[in-house]
């Protein structure tokens, strides 16, 4: 498969951090992007689909047109929901949302590339992955409202659901902690003799955490079948990727652990699938983990609590908008006569209708039972929680805070 290099090695790699070698401005189809070193001789960006929707045959993951349409619908679903959820938050109906605007292809493509029995260890921006796996929109929305039907029983913030039945993990907020867990899970499978891999999502910022370091190291030493999927979206809240590390790419960090690393155009659904599949095959051969750096861009704020205009120029978004991951798949489909504006309008209308229904249901579902607050801390309630539960029930109910 041309261009997918899981192997590193080049004589031209310059000394990093040299005064004489300033960070080169990145180039992608002519657009200058300040925050990300876009090309590197040793870690070229794997790309399959051009902006115009042309597919490099040597990188074709061999999807049927039905599959592409299916995935495209999920891209549209993800984007539409993202936009709707931001509005919902602005209306004060949900407390928070952390979206994936611009990163849809990286998420949908990678999840699609692994097997359904492989386990996903999410960061917090991958609701598209969960929906693709089969989390119902209703369940997702119940979590956004933290109601009695929420998979996590209203205990966590919005966007912190779980979906075990689809081999999909449990979201927590601390950055990086899922990484070592994903390694342990795949390692457990390996000890058990099962051919199960894990796919773990994290951001560029997460590469600075202890758990990135330890997870990468353990996986490489013990040849654990974990795919490390770094969504390099250019930002960790207000900190640009170029200030997160002095290495020119995130992919090359793999080498410090004796692991192959690869950079892929994260806005290219096909390339993401090709590269992730290749890493999955490697894992299946018992060769262990791979680090995938998906180059993409966080088109929105960090979350609804964030105002990106405080720290970045709006103009920076333009080149990325030109590389829009949905548009590129749409071009591909259009070229093959498989996309019509009216179809898409109908899908979106359907999604919006579904969304509206789901929101209505979630919003009218009561909050979790008072007593549920004490469940699941331990498998069974110890004496002190039994007591506290009684105290809560016997005491007055709380005022509304928000």
């Amino acid at each position, binding site marked *: 498969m041309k261009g997918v290099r899981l192997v590193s090695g080049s004589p031209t790699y310059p000394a990093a951090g040299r005064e004489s070698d300033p960070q080169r401005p990145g180039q992608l189809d002519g657009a200058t992007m300040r925050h990300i070193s876009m090309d590197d001789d040793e870690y070229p960006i794997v790309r399959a689909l051009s902006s115009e929707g042309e597919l490099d045959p040597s990188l074709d993951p061999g999807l049927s047109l039905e599959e592409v349409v299916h995935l495209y619908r999920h891209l549209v679903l993800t984007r539409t929901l993202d936009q709707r959820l931001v509005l919902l938050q602005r209306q004060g109906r949900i407390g928070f949302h952390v979206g994936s605007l611009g990163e849809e292809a990286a998420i949908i493509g990678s999840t699609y590339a692994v097997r359904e029995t492989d386990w996903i260890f999410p960061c917090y921006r991958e609701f598209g992955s969960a929906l693709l796996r089969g989390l119902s929109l209703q369940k997702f929305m119940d979590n956004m409202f933290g109601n009695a039907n929420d998979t996590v029983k209203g205990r966590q913030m919005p966007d912190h659901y779980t979906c075990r039945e689809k081999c999909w993990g449990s979201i927590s907020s601390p950055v990086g902690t899922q990484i070592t867990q994903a390694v342990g899970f795949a390692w457990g499978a390996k000890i058990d003799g099962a051919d199960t891999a894990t796919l773990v999502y994290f951001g560029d910022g997460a590469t600075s955490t202890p758990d990135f370091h330890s997870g990468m190291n353990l996986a490489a030493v013990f040849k654990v079948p974990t795919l490390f999927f770094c969504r390099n979206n250019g930002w960790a809240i207000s*900190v640009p990727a170029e200030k997160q590390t002095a290495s020119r790419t995130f992919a090359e960090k793999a080498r410090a652990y004796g692991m192959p690393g690869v950079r892929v155009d994260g806005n290219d659904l096909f390339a993401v699938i090709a590269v992730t599949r290749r890493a999955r095959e490697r894992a299946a051969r018992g060769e262990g983990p791979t680090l995938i750096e998906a180059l993409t861009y966080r088109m929105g704020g960090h979350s609804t609590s964030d105002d990106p205009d405080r720290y970045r120029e709006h103009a920076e978004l333009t080149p990325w908008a030109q590389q829009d991951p949905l548009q590129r798949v749409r071009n591909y489909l259009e070229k093959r006569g498989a996309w019509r504006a009216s179809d898409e309008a109908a899908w979106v209308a359907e999604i919006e209708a579904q969304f509206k229904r789901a929101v209505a249901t979630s919003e009218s579902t009561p909050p979790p039972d008072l007593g549920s607050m004490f469940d699941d801390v331990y498998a069974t309630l110890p004496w*002190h929680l039994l007591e506290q539960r009684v105290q809560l029930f016997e005491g007055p109910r709380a005022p509304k805070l928000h």
Partner: protein
Amino acid sequence: MAQMNMVQAINDALRVAMKRDRRVVLLGEDVGKVGGVFRVTAGLADEFGCERVIDTPLTENGIVGAAIGMALYGLVPVPEIQFADFFWPAYEQVVNELSKYRYRSGGEYTAGMVIRTPVGGGIRGGHYHSQHPETQFVCLPGLKVVCPASAYDAKGLLLSALEDPDPVIFFEPKRIYRAARGEVPEGDYKVPIGSAQVIRPGRDVTILVYGAMVYEALDAAAKAHRQGVECEIIDLRTIWPVDIETITESVKKTGRVVVVHEAPRTLGFGAELITLLTERAFYYLQAPPVRVTGFDTPFPYTLEAEYMPLSHRILPAVLDVAKAS
């Protein structure tokens, strides 16, 4: 005097200190260009440059470890941990290094610094943006732990902390970042570390409280008053070393005590307070002391108002303890 909220007061304290003393440097995630996710450090990078207001990579252990090194060099670093919930990657540096540095080096090295971090619930933060983990710092000899409840105290305590030779954990109750507004003097002034404040005198029941819950205690006390029970509220301000004289004196007077904190009950700071008072005012106690605290569960999202020790839970505790004999 200017009216300020707590965010502005802390910002102002940092500005005063940075102007006066070039050794003061701030570091943390998003503290620079954007001025902190709560905007506590807003404008400081512009004013003092990004060499002194440092946007770091995402590395709590690196932030605190590097801050220790800066302090050993002679700077006065003010690391920010974006939420106290994310302190833990740095906990190794706090337990084994920061808190023990002077002791373990026979007094040769010290690492005075102020670690600022927002704490507490009531902001729809779920269990990863609401914790109030004073226990894990009070139990470490060598640290001081501070938690202001007013804009005035926040500035005055921070200015004290910045001159304190010991490392200070500075908990900022984020629920009242903007709600706690008041007169704040310009320039330098200090609120001493280690001194509590009786913010409402009363003869019947002592309420020990700090941070955002101070306002809940005040509310409960006002309601108790209407039922004929007079609460003495002590805002601890410094959690550790606690102002033992002020609290003991009050309890010797009232003989009844309610402790309020957001952290879970078991081994929350209430346990230490009640034990200290039992040790030194046992024969004055007229009723068993009572804890009104978070429950022993992770901090919930939807039910956070039920979880927190708000006024509606403080009031019955106060009335009960006032009656008990």
